[in-house]
Protein backbone atom coordinates (compact mmCIF):
# COMPACT_ATOMS: atom_id res chain seq x y z
CA UNK A 1 0.00 0.00 0.00
CA UNK A 2 0.88 3.64 0.10
CA UNK A 3 4.43 4.25 -0.98
CA UNK A 4 4.90 0.97 -2.86
CA UNK A 5 1.78 1.37 -4.97
CA UNK A 6 2.74 4.93 -5.89
CA UNK A 7 6.33 4.05 -6.72
CA UNK A 8 5.18 1.24 -9.00
CA UNK A 9 8.16 -0.58 -10.42
CA UNK A 10 10.73 1.84 -9.14
CA UNK A 11 11.62 -0.43 -6.28
CA UNK A 12 13.07 0.73 -3.01
CA UNK A 13 15.25 3.77 -2.41
CA UNK A 14 17.70 3.46 0.41
CA UNK A 15 19.57 6.30 2.01
CA UNK A 16 21.06 7.31 5.29
CA UNK A 17 19.36 9.45 7.88
CA UNK A 18 22.11 12.06 7.51
CA UNK A 19 21.61 12.43 3.80
CA UNK A 20 17.83 12.57 4.05
CA UNK A 21 17.84 15.20 6.79
CA UNK A 22 20.55 17.30 5.16
CA UNK A 23 18.69 17.13 1.86
CA UNK A 24 15.57 18.35 3.61
CA UNK A 25 17.44 21.18 5.31
CA UNK A 26 18.97 22.49 2.10
CA UNK A 27 15.90 22.04 -0.09
CA UNK A 28 13.64 24.50 1.67
CA UNK A 29 15.64 26.97 3.65
CA UNK A 30 13.76 29.92 5.02
CA UNK A 31 15.88 33.05 5.27
CA UNK A 32 15.12 35.80 7.74
CA UNK A 33 13.93 38.97 6.05
CA UNK A 34 16.79 41.06 7.34
CA UNK A 35 18.08 43.91 5.24
CA UNK A 36 20.41 46.55 6.58
CA UNK A 37 21.89 48.63 3.78
CA UNK A 38 22.99 48.50 0.16
CA UNK A 39 23.47 44.72 0.12
CA UNK A 40 19.81 44.27 1.00
CA UNK A 41 18.91 45.75 -2.39
CA UNK A 42 21.11 43.18 -4.14
CA UNK A 43 19.54 40.50 -1.93
CA UNK A 44 16.14 41.68 -3.15
CA UNK A 45 17.44 41.52 -6.72
CA UNK A 46 18.50 37.94 -6.09
CA UNK A 47 14.98 37.11 -4.99
CA UNK A 48 13.30 39.00 -7.82
CA UNK A 49 12.59 37.95 -11.37
CA UNK A 50 16.02 37.80 -12.99
CA UNK A 51 17.90 35.72 -10.46
CA UNK A 52 14.95 33.97 -8.80
CA UNK A 53 16.15 32.42 -5.57
CA UNK A 54 13.02 30.27 -5.47
CA UNK A 55 14.86 27.88 -7.79
CA UNK A 56 16.69 26.84 -4.64
CA UNK A 57 13.62 26.75 -2.43
CA UNK A 58 14.44 30.06 -0.81
CA UNK A 59 11.77 32.45 -2.02
CA UNK A 60 9.93 32.43 1.28
CA UNK A 61 11.45 35.09 3.52
CA UNK A 62 10.12 35.09 7.02
CA UNK A 63 9.90 38.32 8.95
CA UNK A 64 9.96 36.45 12.26
CA UNK A 65 13.24 34.95 13.46
CA UNK A 66 11.30 32.11 15.09
CA UNK A 67 10.30 30.79 11.69
CA UNK A 68 13.60 31.11 9.85
CA UNK A 69 16.77 29.08 9.81
CA UNK A 70 19.15 31.29 7.84
CA UNK A 71 20.09 34.89 8.51
CA UNK A 72 21.72 36.82 5.67
CA UNK A 73 23.41 39.82 7.26
CA UNK A 74 23.14 42.15 4.28
CA UNK A 75 24.91 45.40 4.95
CA UNK A 76 26.91 47.33 7.48
CA UNK A 77 26.23 46.57 11.11
CA UNK A 78 26.53 49.63 13.31
CA UNK A 79 27.20 49.59 17.02
CA UNK A 80 23.60 50.64 17.60
CA UNK A 81 22.28 47.77 15.48
CA UNK A 82 24.60 45.09 16.94
CA UNK A 83 22.51 44.16 20.01
CA UNK A 84 19.43 43.92 17.82
CA UNK A 85 21.20 41.52 15.48
CA UNK A 86 22.40 39.39 18.38
CA UNK A 87 18.88 39.24 19.78
CA UNK A 88 17.45 38.21 16.43
CA UNK A 89 20.07 35.46 16.16
CA UNK A 90 19.28 34.22 19.65
CA UNK A 91 15.58 34.10 18.83
CA UNK A 92 16.10 31.81 15.86
CA UNK A 93 15.46 28.12 16.47
CA UNK A 94 18.24 25.57 15.91
CA UNK A 95 19.58 24.52 13.46
CA UNK A 96 20.50 27.99 12.20
CA UNK A 97 23.07 29.36 9.80
CA UNK A 98 24.53 32.77 9.05
CA UNK A 99 25.71 34.26 5.78
CA UNK A 100 27.67 37.48 6.04
CA UNK A 101 26.91 39.33 2.83
CA UNK A 102 29.24 42.04 1.62
CA UNK A 103 32.49 43.54 2.79
CA UNK A 104 30.97 45.69 5.53
CA UNK A 105 29.35 42.74 7.26
CA UNK A 106 32.41 40.55 6.77
CA UNK A 107 35.18 42.89 7.90
CA UNK A 108 33.91 46.45 8.18
CA UNK A 109 34.65 47.17 4.53
CA UNK A 110 35.76 50.70 3.77
CA UNK A 111 34.40 51.94 7.10
CA UNK A 112 37.16 51.54 9.62
CA UNK A 113 35.64 54.01 12.02
CA UNK A 114 33.81 54.56 15.28
CA UNK A 115 30.37 53.60 14.04
CA UNK A 116 30.72 50.26 12.30
CA UNK A 117 31.29 46.83 13.84
CA UNK A 118 34.43 45.50 12.17
CA UNK A 119 32.93 42.26 10.96
CA UNK A 120 29.68 40.69 12.06
CA UNK A 121 31.59 37.64 13.36
CA UNK A 122 32.36 39.73 16.43
CA UNK A 123 28.71 39.29 17.37
CA UNK A 124 27.42 36.05 15.83
CA UNK A 125 29.14 32.99 14.33
CA UNK A 126 29.29 33.15 10.54
CA UNK A 127 29.14 30.14 8.19
CA UNK A 128 29.79 31.74 4.81
CA UNK A 129 31.32 35.09 3.92
CA UNK A 130 30.35 36.66 0.61
CA UNK A 131 32.77 39.33 -0.60
CA UNK A 132 31.84 42.33 -2.69
CA UNK A 133 30.59 45.86 -2.21
CA UNK A 134 27.82 45.01 -2.80
CA UNK A 135 28.14 41.42 -4.06
CA UNK A 136 26.28 40.63 -7.26
CA UNK A 137 23.23 38.40 -6.93
CA UNK A 138 25.27 35.61 -8.53
CA UNK A 139 27.83 35.93 -5.78
CA UNK A 140 25.13 35.69 -3.13
CA UNK A 141 23.69 32.61 -4.84
CA UNK A 142 27.18 31.12 -4.90
CA UNK A 143 27.46 31.82 -1.18
CA UNK A 144 24.16 30.07 -0.59
CA UNK A 145 25.29 27.08 -2.67
CA UNK A 146 28.47 26.93 -0.60
CA UNK A 147 26.34 26.88 2.54
CA UNK A 148 24.26 24.07 1.06
CA UNK A 149 27.44 22.06 0.49
CA UNK A 150 28.51 22.72 4.03
CA UNK A 151 25.17 21.52 5.37
CA UNK A 152 25.24 18.41 3.20
CA UNK A 153 28.60 17.51 4.72
CA UNK A 154 27.28 17.69 8.28
CA UNK A 155 27.48 14.40 10.19
CA UNK A 156 24.96 12.95 12.56
CA UNK A 157 27.42 12.86 15.46
CA UNK A 158 27.68 16.64 15.36
CA UNK A 159 23.98 17.36 15.46
CA UNK A 160 23.68 17.11 19.21
CA UNK A 161 26.66 19.36 19.92
Amino acid at each position, binding site marked *: MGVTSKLGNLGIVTTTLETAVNWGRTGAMWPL*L*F*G*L*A*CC*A*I*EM*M*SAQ*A*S*DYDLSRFGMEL*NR*ASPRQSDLIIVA*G*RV*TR*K*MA*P*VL*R*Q*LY*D*QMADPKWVISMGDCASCGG*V*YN*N*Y*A*IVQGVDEIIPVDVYVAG*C*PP*RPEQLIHGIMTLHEKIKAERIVHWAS
Partner: protein
Amino acid sequence: MVTGIQSRETGTKAVWEGSLEELRGLVTERAMTGETMLLNMGPHHPSTHGVLRLLLELDGEQIVTCLPDIGFLHTGIEKNIEDKTYEKGVPLTDRMDYLSPMSNNMAFCLAVEKLAEVDVPERARIIRVICLELARIASHMVWLGTHALDMGAMSVFLYCFREREHILRIFEMISGQRMMGSYLRPGGVWRDLPPEFYKAVTDFITYFEPKVDDYEALLTRNPIWLDRTQGVGILEPEVALAWGVTGACLRGSGVNWDVRKAMPYSDYDTYDFDVPLGEHGDVYDRFLCRVQEVRQSVRILKQAMKRLPKKGPFRSDNRKFVPPPRRELGQSMEAVIHHFKLWTHGFDAPDEEVYVSLESPRGEIGCYLHGTGGNKPRRVHFKTPSFMHISALPVMSEGYLLADMIAIIGSVDIVLGDCDR
Protein backbone atom coordinates in the same frame (compact mmCIF):
# COMPACT_ATOMS: atom_id res chain seq x y z
CA MET B 1 10.04 47.82 29.05
CA VAL B 2 8.87 49.07 25.72
CA THR B 3 11.00 46.99 23.42
CA GLY B 4 11.84 43.31 23.44
CA ILE B 5 12.82 41.03 26.24
CA GLN B 6 16.23 40.26 27.63
CA SER B 7 17.80 37.49 25.64
CA ARG B 8 17.70 34.37 27.77
CA GLU B 9 20.26 32.39 25.84
CA THR B 10 23.22 34.74 26.06
CA GLY B 11 22.19 37.45 28.45
CA THR B 12 23.00 40.22 25.96
CA LYS B 13 21.33 43.52 26.59
CA ALA B 14 17.94 44.13 25.08
CA VAL B 15 17.57 46.99 22.62
CA TRP B 16 16.23 49.46 25.12
CA GLU B 17 15.72 48.97 28.79
CA GLY B 18 14.42 52.36 29.79
CA SER B 19 11.47 53.07 32.00
CA LEU B 20 8.19 54.64 31.04
CA GLU B 21 9.19 57.77 32.95
CA GLU B 22 11.86 58.51 30.34
CA LEU B 23 9.14 58.97 27.76
CA ARG B 24 7.27 61.64 29.74
CA GLY B 25 6.70 64.61 27.47
CA LEU B 26 7.28 62.59 24.33
CA VAL B 27 4.08 60.58 24.59
CA THR B 28 0.76 61.78 25.98
CA GLU B 29 -0.23 61.45 29.63
CA ARG B 30 -2.70 58.77 28.65
CA ALA B 31 0.20 56.45 27.88
CA MET B 32 1.49 56.90 31.46
CA THR B 33 -1.71 55.55 32.92
CA GLY B 34 -1.86 52.71 30.44
CA GLU B 35 -4.95 54.04 28.69
CA THR B 36 -3.14 54.02 25.36
CA MET B 37 -0.73 51.35 24.23
CA LEU B 38 2.91 51.78 23.29
CA LEU B 39 4.00 49.65 20.38
CA ASN B 40 7.49 49.21 19.05
CA MET B 41 7.90 48.93 15.29
CA GLY B 42 11.35 48.09 14.00
CA PRO B 43 14.30 48.30 13.70
CA HIS B 44 13.78 44.85 12.22
CA HIS B 45 10.49 45.13 10.42
CA PRO B 46 9.82 44.21 6.79
CA SER B 47 7.94 47.43 6.04
CA THR B 48 10.20 50.10 7.51
CA HIS B 49 12.45 49.98 4.41
CA GLY B 50 15.62 49.53 6.35
CA VAL B 51 16.47 49.88 9.99
CA LEU B 52 14.06 52.54 11.18
CA ARG B 53 12.52 52.16 14.59
CA LEU B 54 9.21 53.78 15.38
CA LEU B 55 7.66 54.00 18.82
CA LEU B 56 3.94 54.28 18.32
CA GLU B 57 1.36 55.27 20.85
CA LEU B 58 -1.91 53.66 19.90
CA ASP B 59 -5.46 54.33 20.96
CA GLY B 60 -7.02 51.11 19.80
CA GLU B 61 -5.87 51.01 16.21
CA GLN B 62 -5.41 54.74 15.88
CA ILE B 63 -1.97 56.36 16.04
CA VAL B 64 -1.76 59.03 18.75
CA THR B 65 1.96 59.74 18.68
CA CYS B 66 4.75 58.49 16.48
CA LEU B 67 8.36 58.77 17.63
CA PRO B 68 10.96 57.85 15.02
CA ASP B 69 14.27 56.53 16.33
CA ILE B 70 17.07 56.82 13.78
CA GLY B 71 20.79 56.14 13.77
CA PHE B 72 20.74 52.37 13.30
CA LEU B 73 22.69 52.83 10.09
CA HIS B 74 24.94 55.70 11.10
CA THR B 75 28.16 55.00 9.24
CA GLY B 76 30.24 58.11 9.78
CA ILE B 77 30.53 58.76 6.06
CA GLU B 78 30.87 62.53 6.42
CA LYS B 79 33.67 62.12 8.94
CA ASN B 80 35.44 59.57 6.73
CA ILE B 81 35.37 61.92 3.73
CA GLU B 82 37.21 64.54 5.80
CA ASP B 83 40.21 62.22 5.85
CA LYS B 84 40.25 61.61 2.12
CA THR B 85 41.32 63.65 -0.86
CA TYR B 86 38.48 65.06 -2.91
CA GLU B 87 38.48 62.37 -5.57
CA LYS B 88 38.68 59.56 -3.03
CA GLY B 89 35.60 60.92 -1.28
CA VAL B 90 33.37 60.02 -4.22
CA PRO B 91 33.08 56.24 -3.56
CA LEU B 92 31.96 56.90 0.01
CA THR B 93 29.09 59.08 -1.16
CA ASP B 94 27.78 56.16 -3.23
CA ARG B 95 26.82 54.30 -0.11
CA MET B 96 24.65 56.98 1.46
CA ASP B 97 21.52 56.84 -0.63
CA TYR B 98 22.16 53.40 -2.02
CA LEU B 99 19.13 53.39 -4.31
CA SER B 100 20.51 56.20 -6.44
CA PRO B 101 24.27 56.42 -5.89
CA MET B 102 24.66 58.61 -8.95
CA SER B 103 22.77 61.50 -7.32
CA ASN B 104 25.10 61.44 -4.32
CA ASN B 105 28.15 61.39 -6.59
CA MET B 106 26.69 64.31 -8.46
CA ALA B 107 26.04 66.37 -5.31
CA PHE B 108 29.59 65.84 -4.08
CA CYS B 109 31.14 66.43 -7.51
CA LEU B 110 29.16 69.64 -8.04
CA ALA B 111 30.34 70.90 -4.66
CA VAL B 112 33.97 70.06 -5.40
CA GLU B 113 33.72 71.63 -8.84
CA LYS B 114 32.24 74.78 -7.37
CA LEU B 115 34.89 74.95 -4.64
CA ALA B 116 37.89 74.23 -6.85
CA GLU B 117 36.40 75.88 -9.95
CA VAL B 118 36.81 72.91 -12.24
CA ASP B 119 35.03 73.11 -15.56
CA VAL B 120 32.96 70.26 -16.99
CA PRO B 121 32.80 69.74 -20.78
CA GLU B 122 29.37 69.77 -22.38
CA ARG B 123 29.41 66.12 -23.39
CA ALA B 124 30.17 65.12 -19.81
CA ARG B 125 27.19 67.16 -18.64
CA ILE B 126 24.94 65.27 -21.05
CA ILE B 127 26.35 61.92 -19.88
CA ARG B 128 25.67 63.00 -16.31
CA VAL B 129 22.06 63.86 -17.10
CA ILE B 130 21.58 60.43 -18.69
CA CYS B 131 23.10 58.72 -15.65
CA LEU B 132 21.02 60.75 -13.22
CA GLU B 133 17.77 60.07 -15.03
CA LEU B 134 18.53 56.36 -15.33
CA ALA B 135 19.28 56.37 -11.61
CA ARG B 136 15.99 58.13 -10.96
CA ILE B 137 14.08 55.47 -12.87
CA ALA B 138 15.99 52.67 -11.10
CA SER B 139 15.29 54.21 -7.71
CA HIS B 140 11.61 54.76 -8.45
CA MET B 141 11.37 51.13 -9.57
CA VAL B 142 12.57 49.96 -6.15
CA TRP B 143 10.20 52.39 -4.46
CA LEU B 144 7.21 51.27 -6.52
CA GLY B 145 8.05 47.58 -6.11
CA THR B 146 8.52 47.69 -2.35
CA HIS B 147 5.65 50.09 -1.76
CA ALA B 148 3.30 47.82 -3.67
CA LEU B 149 4.75 44.76 -1.95
CA ASP B 150 4.00 46.29 1.45
CA MET B 151 0.41 46.79 0.38
CA GLY B 152 0.09 43.22 -0.82
CA ALA B 153 0.71 43.51 -4.57
CA MET B 154 3.50 40.99 -5.09
CA SER B 155 3.56 40.99 -8.88
CA VAL B 156 4.45 44.69 -9.18
CA PHE B 157 7.65 44.01 -7.23
CA LEU B 158 8.73 41.35 -9.70
CA TYR B 159 8.01 43.56 -12.73
CA CYS B 160 9.82 46.56 -11.24
CA PHE B 161 12.94 44.60 -10.43
CA ARG B 162 12.97 43.17 -13.93
CA GLU B 163 13.13 46.71 -15.35
CA ARG B 164 15.70 47.76 -12.77
CA GLU B 165 18.02 44.97 -13.89
CA HIS B 166 18.17 46.55 -17.36
CA ILE B 167 19.40 49.83 -15.86
CA LEU B 168 21.88 48.09 -13.60
CA ARG B 169 23.30 46.33 -16.62
CA ILE B 170 23.81 49.70 -18.30
CA PHE B 171 25.53 50.99 -15.17
CA GLU B 172 27.76 47.96 -15.11
CA MET B 173 28.59 48.57 -18.74
CA ILE B 174 29.79 52.11 -18.11
CA SER B 175 31.35 51.81 -14.66
CA GLY B 176 32.08 48.13 -14.06
CA GLN B 177 29.79 47.95 -11.03
CA ARG B 178 26.07 47.38 -10.83
CA MET B 179 25.20 49.75 -8.04
CA MET B 180 28.18 51.59 -6.57
CA GLY B 181 29.81 52.75 -9.76
CA SER B 182 31.41 56.02 -8.56
CA TYR B 183 31.15 56.92 -12.22
CA LEU B 184 30.72 60.66 -11.79
CA ARG B 185 33.97 62.31 -10.74
CA PRO B 186 34.98 65.93 -10.17
CA GLY B 187 35.45 67.39 -13.63
CA GLY B 188 33.25 64.97 -15.56
CA VAL B 189 32.88 61.21 -15.57
CA TRP B 190 35.40 58.46 -14.92
CA ARG B 191 35.87 57.12 -18.44
CA ASP B 192 34.38 57.34 -21.89
CA LEU B 193 31.19 55.51 -22.73
CA PRO B 194 31.62 52.08 -24.30
CA PRO B 195 30.31 51.85 -27.91
CA GLU B 196 27.45 49.51 -26.93
CA PHE B 197 26.10 52.08 -24.47
CA TYR B 198 24.16 54.09 -27.06
CA LYS B 199 22.16 51.13 -28.30
CA ALA B 200 21.57 49.83 -24.78
CA VAL B 201 19.99 53.10 -23.65
CA THR B 202 17.83 53.59 -26.74
CA ASP B 203 16.71 49.97 -26.49
CA PHE B 204 15.89 50.49 -22.86
CA ILE B 205 13.80 53.59 -23.63
CA THR B 206 11.70 51.80 -26.25
CA TYR B 207 11.35 48.78 -23.97
CA PHE B 208 10.55 50.72 -20.83
CA GLU B 209 8.05 53.30 -22.03
CA PRO B 210 5.05 50.94 -22.46
CA LYS B 211 5.93 49.22 -19.18
CA VAL B 212 4.94 52.30 -17.18
CA ASP B 213 1.43 51.88 -18.59
CA ASP B 214 1.45 48.33 -17.26
CA TYR B 215 2.16 49.47 -13.71
CA GLU B 216 -0.54 52.07 -13.98
CA ALA B 217 -2.94 49.42 -15.26
CA LEU B 218 -2.09 47.30 -12.22
CA LEU B 219 -2.40 50.02 -9.61
CA THR B 220 -3.83 53.40 -10.59
CA ARG B 221 -7.46 52.33 -10.70
CA ASN B 222 -7.15 49.21 -8.58
CA PRO B 223 -9.92 49.53 -5.94
CA ILE B 224 -7.82 47.92 -3.17
CA TRP B 225 -4.94 50.27 -3.96
CA LEU B 226 -7.29 53.28 -3.92
CA ASP B 227 -8.78 52.24 -0.58
CA ARG B 228 -5.39 51.89 1.00
CA THR B 229 -3.89 55.10 -0.36
CA GLN B 230 -6.51 57.77 -0.96
CA GLY B 231 -7.06 60.18 1.93
CA VAL B 232 -4.24 58.59 3.92
CA GLY B 233 -1.20 60.42 5.27
CA ILE B 234 -2.32 63.85 4.15
CA LEU B 235 0.40 66.48 4.23
CA GLU B 236 -0.80 70.07 3.83
CA PRO B 237 1.47 72.22 1.63
CA GLU B 238 2.28 74.72 4.43
CA VAL B 239 3.11 71.91 6.83
CA ALA B 240 5.27 70.22 4.21
CA LEU B 241 7.25 73.41 3.63
CA ALA B 242 7.60 74.00 7.37
CA TRP B 243 9.10 70.54 7.86
CA GLY B 244 11.51 70.95 4.97
CA VAL B 245 9.93 68.19 2.93
CA THR B 246 11.14 68.10 -0.67
CA GLY B 247 10.85 65.98 -3.77
CA ALA B 248 7.77 64.04 -4.74
CA CYS B 249 6.35 64.34 -1.21
CA LEU B 250 6.26 68.12 -1.53
CA ARG B 251 4.99 68.03 -5.11
CA GLY B 252 2.30 65.55 -4.08
CA SER B 253 0.98 68.32 -1.81
CA GLY B 254 0.82 70.65 -4.80
CA VAL B 255 3.92 72.81 -4.23
CA ASN B 256 5.80 73.35 -7.45
CA TRP B 257 9.42 72.92 -6.37
CA ASP B 258 11.86 70.92 -8.40
CA VAL B 259 15.54 71.84 -8.09
CA ARG B 260 16.05 70.88 -11.72
CA LYS B 261 13.71 73.76 -12.66
CA ALA B 262 14.30 76.14 -9.75
CA MET B 263 18.10 76.06 -9.58
CA PRO B 264 19.20 74.25 -12.74
CA TYR B 265 22.47 72.36 -12.77
CA SER B 266 24.11 70.36 -15.55
CA ASP B 267 22.04 72.20 -18.20
CA TYR B 268 18.70 70.93 -16.94
CA ASP B 269 17.13 74.25 -17.97
CA THR B 270 17.69 73.35 -21.62
CA TYR B 271 15.66 70.13 -21.39
CA ASP B 272 11.95 70.12 -21.94
CA PHE B 273 10.07 68.36 -19.16
CA ASP B 274 7.12 68.91 -16.84
CA VAL B 275 6.94 68.81 -13.08
CA PRO B 276 4.00 66.61 -12.09
CA LEU B 277 1.99 67.96 -9.16
CA GLY B 278 -0.57 66.42 -6.83
CA GLU B 279 -3.59 68.05 -5.24
CA HIS B 280 -4.45 66.34 -1.97
CA GLY B 281 -1.04 65.52 -0.55
CA ASP B 282 -2.04 61.97 0.32
CA VAL B 283 -0.27 58.69 -0.36
CA TYR B 284 -2.07 58.27 -3.66
CA ASP B 285 -0.99 61.67 -4.99
CA ARG B 286 2.63 60.96 -4.07
CA PHE B 287 2.31 57.70 -5.96
CA LEU B 288 0.91 59.46 -9.03
CA CYS B 289 3.64 62.12 -8.89
CA ARG B 290 6.41 59.54 -8.86
CA VAL B 291 4.93 57.50 -11.67
CA GLN B 292 4.59 60.65 -13.77
CA GLU B 293 8.16 61.58 -12.85
CA VAL B 294 9.31 58.30 -14.35
CA ARG B 295 7.60 59.26 -17.61
CA GLN B 296 9.28 62.68 -17.52
CA SER B 297 12.64 61.02 -16.92
CA VAL B 298 12.13 58.99 -20.07
CA ARG B 299 11.39 62.26 -21.89
CA ILE B 300 14.64 63.79 -20.65
CA LEU B 301 16.53 60.62 -21.56
CA LYS B 302 15.25 60.80 -25.13
CA GLN B 303 16.36 64.42 -25.52
CA ALA B 304 19.74 63.73 -23.95
CA MET B 305 20.37 60.74 -26.20
CA LYS B 306 19.64 62.92 -29.22
CA ARG B 307 22.16 65.52 -28.04
CA LEU B 308 24.89 63.12 -27.00
CA PRO B 309 27.77 63.12 -29.53
CA LYS B 310 29.50 59.78 -30.09
CA LYS B 311 32.91 61.27 -29.56
CA GLY B 312 34.25 64.12 -27.51
CA PRO B 313 35.69 65.01 -24.13
CA PHE B 314 34.15 63.23 -21.16
CA ARG B 315 36.24 64.91 -18.51
CA SER B 316 37.84 68.27 -18.00
CA ASP B 317 41.32 68.57 -19.53
CA ASN B 318 42.51 70.79 -16.71
CA ARG B 319 45.51 68.73 -15.65
CA LYS B 320 45.67 70.39 -12.24
CA PHE B 321 42.50 68.55 -11.29
CA VAL B 322 42.05 65.63 -13.64
CA PRO B 323 44.75 62.97 -14.15
CA PRO B 324 46.01 62.61 -17.74
CA PRO B 325 44.93 59.60 -19.83
CA ARG B 326 47.22 56.59 -19.73
CA ARG B 327 48.44 56.94 -23.32
CA GLU B 328 50.02 60.33 -22.52
CA LEU B 329 52.18 58.89 -19.74
CA GLY B 330 54.68 57.30 -22.14
CA GLN B 331 55.21 60.49 -24.11
CA SER B 332 55.09 63.45 -21.80
CA MET B 333 57.12 64.08 -18.67
CA GLU B 334 54.57 66.67 -17.61
CA ALA B 335 51.81 64.07 -17.76
CA VAL B 336 53.83 61.76 -15.49
CA ILE B 337 54.27 64.56 -12.97
CA HIS B 338 50.55 65.37 -13.02
CA HIS B 339 49.67 61.70 -12.72
CA PHE B 340 51.97 61.24 -9.73
CA LYS B 341 50.85 64.45 -8.08
CA LEU B 342 47.14 63.74 -8.46
CA TRP B 343 47.27 60.12 -7.28
CA THR B 344 49.45 60.83 -4.26
CA HIS B 345 48.50 64.29 -3.10
CA GLY B 346 45.32 65.09 -4.99
CA PHE B 347 44.43 68.66 -5.78
CA ASP B 348 44.14 71.59 -3.42
CA ALA B 349 40.93 73.53 -2.94
CA PRO B 350 40.61 76.97 -1.33
CA ASP B 351 39.60 77.58 2.28
CA GLU B 352 36.05 78.53 1.43
CA GLU B 353 32.62 77.06 1.90
CA VAL B 354 30.15 76.09 -0.79
CA TYR B 355 26.70 74.60 -0.85
CA VAL B 356 25.03 72.98 -3.81
CA SER B 357 21.76 71.11 -4.04
CA LEU B 358 20.16 68.94 -6.63
CA GLU B 359 17.05 66.88 -7.18
CA SER B 360 17.64 63.26 -6.20
CA PRO B 361 14.85 60.71 -6.67
CA ARG B 362 13.87 61.22 -3.03
CA GLY B 363 14.04 65.00 -2.95
CA GLU B 364 16.54 67.76 -2.57
CA ILE B 365 19.99 66.53 -1.65
CA GLY B 366 22.46 69.21 -0.67
CA CYS B 367 26.18 69.08 -0.12
CA TYR B 368 27.99 71.56 2.09
CA LEU B 369 31.73 71.53 1.60
CA HIS B 370 34.37 73.52 3.40
CA GLY B 371 37.89 73.39 2.02
CA THR B 372 41.10 73.94 3.95
CA GLY B 373 43.32 75.21 1.20
CA GLY B 374 44.87 71.73 1.18
CA ASN B 375 43.92 68.46 -0.45
CA LYS B 376 41.28 67.38 2.06
CA PRO B 377 38.02 69.03 3.07
CA ARG B 378 37.59 70.50 6.54
CA ARG B 379 33.94 69.60 6.76
CA VAL B 380 31.51 67.78 4.51
CA HIS B 381 27.86 67.73 5.33
CA PHE B 382 24.98 66.35 3.37
CA LYS B 383 21.45 67.65 3.66
CA THR B 384 19.52 64.55 2.80
CA PRO B 385 15.83 64.27 1.97
CA SER B 386 15.15 61.10 3.96
CA PHE B 387 16.14 62.82 7.21
CA MET B 388 13.59 65.56 6.59
CA HIS B 389 10.93 63.09 5.57
CA ILE B 390 11.38 60.96 8.68
CA SER B 391 11.02 64.10 10.81
CA ALA B 392 7.75 64.76 9.05
CA LEU B 393 6.47 61.19 9.55
CA PRO B 394 4.69 62.00 12.85
CA VAL B 395 2.76 64.86 11.23
CA MET B 396 1.70 62.61 8.36
CA SER B 397 0.69 59.64 10.47
CA GLU B 398 -1.02 60.98 13.58
CA GLY B 399 -4.72 60.18 13.64
CA TYR B 400 -4.49 57.43 11.04
CA LEU B 401 -4.69 53.70 11.59
CA LEU B 402 -1.72 51.49 12.29
CA ALA B 403 -2.13 49.77 8.92
CA ASP B 404 -1.91 53.17 7.23
CA MET B 405 1.53 53.66 8.74
CA ILE B 406 2.88 51.07 6.30
CA ALA B 407 1.36 52.96 3.38
CA ILE B 408 2.77 56.27 4.63
CA ILE B 409 6.31 54.95 5.15
CA GLY B 410 6.20 53.41 1.69
CA SER B 411 4.96 56.60 0.08
CA VAL B 412 7.66 58.91 1.46
CA ASP B 413 10.30 56.55 0.06
CA ILE B 414 12.86 56.73 2.82
CA VAL B 415 16.32 55.23 2.65
CA LEU B 416 17.93 54.88 6.04
CA GLY B 417 21.43 55.08 4.64
CA ASP B 418 20.45 58.46 3.27
CA CYS B 419 19.05 59.54 6.62
CA ASP B 420 21.75 58.31 9.00
CA ARG B 421 24.80 58.46 6.71
